[in-house]
């Protein structure tokens, strides 16, 4: 198992409103809204799961093919890394 994916709690603030998770990047002041798979991935990054475990959990809940889910997950993780919201990576 690779290292678990962990969010950096000092880098963001989050809130839930109308079935969306809204996340503010505290460094930039920008915020973005997560729905569906984006919100699911955000919740699955809880410090206990690595990429493979997150992907497996997504595959259980979403009918999309593994390749599509993996591409979506990797793009999302790249965005989070680029924004400095993941720690230890």
């Amino acid at each position, binding site marked *: 198992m690779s290292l678990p994916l962990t969010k950096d709690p000092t880098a963001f603030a989050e809130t839930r*409103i109308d079935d969306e998770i*809204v996340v*503010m990047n505290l460094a930039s002041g920008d915020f973005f809204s997560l729905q569906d798979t984006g919100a699911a991935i955000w919740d699955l990054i809880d410090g206990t799961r690595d990429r493979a475990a997150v992907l497996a959990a997504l595959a259980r809940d979403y009918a999309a093919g593994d390749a599509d889910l993996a591409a979506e997950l990797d793009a999302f993780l790249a965005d989070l890394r680029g924004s400095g919201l993941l720690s230890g990576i």
Partner: protein
Amino acid sequence: MLPSAARPLPQPHPAVALMARETRVREGRVARTLGGITLHDDSWVLRGSEFLMRASGEIGLHYRRGEGITLERPDGTDPRTIALWLNGTLYAAIAALNGLYPIHASAIAHRGRVYAFTGAAGAGKSTLVAALGRAGFAQFCDDTLILDISGDGPPVCLPGHKRLKLWPEGVALAGVEPGDLVAADYHKHFVKPAGGTVGEPLPLAGLFYLEQGERPEAAALAGGDRIERLQDDHYTAELWRQAAGQTRAERFASLAALARRIAMQRFARPFDPARFAEGIDFIAAHIEGTSA
């Protein structure tokens, strides 16, 4: 039961009483500097519990929480000009410094609740309210809506403190009679609200964001859009941000909490003057249907 002559007078809403107390005016010298910042004409600064503003024509306005407003003006200054300065940014700053939330909006009242319209300068907020007055809706406020957000549930709106003002184009569009000029060098007209006014605090029923569209339509806003729209770039939002002295995380949390308490919609309509009445008919029916 007390005899009628001894009955206590009804007490104003605490936020209304607060604004009446904090906006009292005395004349005196006003500095050009606050918190190390020296102001040029037509600028302001907010620091701690104080607000300082300088206007052209050697007009100075200073507010300190608990002490009210100090006004400095040359002899012979047009009182209409002074009224504009007292009722504009300064009023919103005083509200923000006392925990009230100013929004750049004009509003009507219907069946005991307030329907507010917001948008950038020129979006048609005042013209819309004037035209809705002709349709029988009472005016609640023009340009600035002050919210008491201290309780739970929908915020309580404080009745407007300004008279309705329209540019000549707005007067023609709304089909209302132009009143006096607002000031000699400011060519908006005062307009008498055709549907009357409401002078008591009322809960906010909805906040409409004015947009251009092919046809009149209203749609509920949801999720992050509600938070983002509250964080607009108007000076009222900046006043609140500075007065509250919050970190980014605290401000985000407070905006999210406020967004959950306000029903927000986008209201789109054609900007073509020939189709102005379509928008008015639509929103009048929409409000009537929502409030029934």
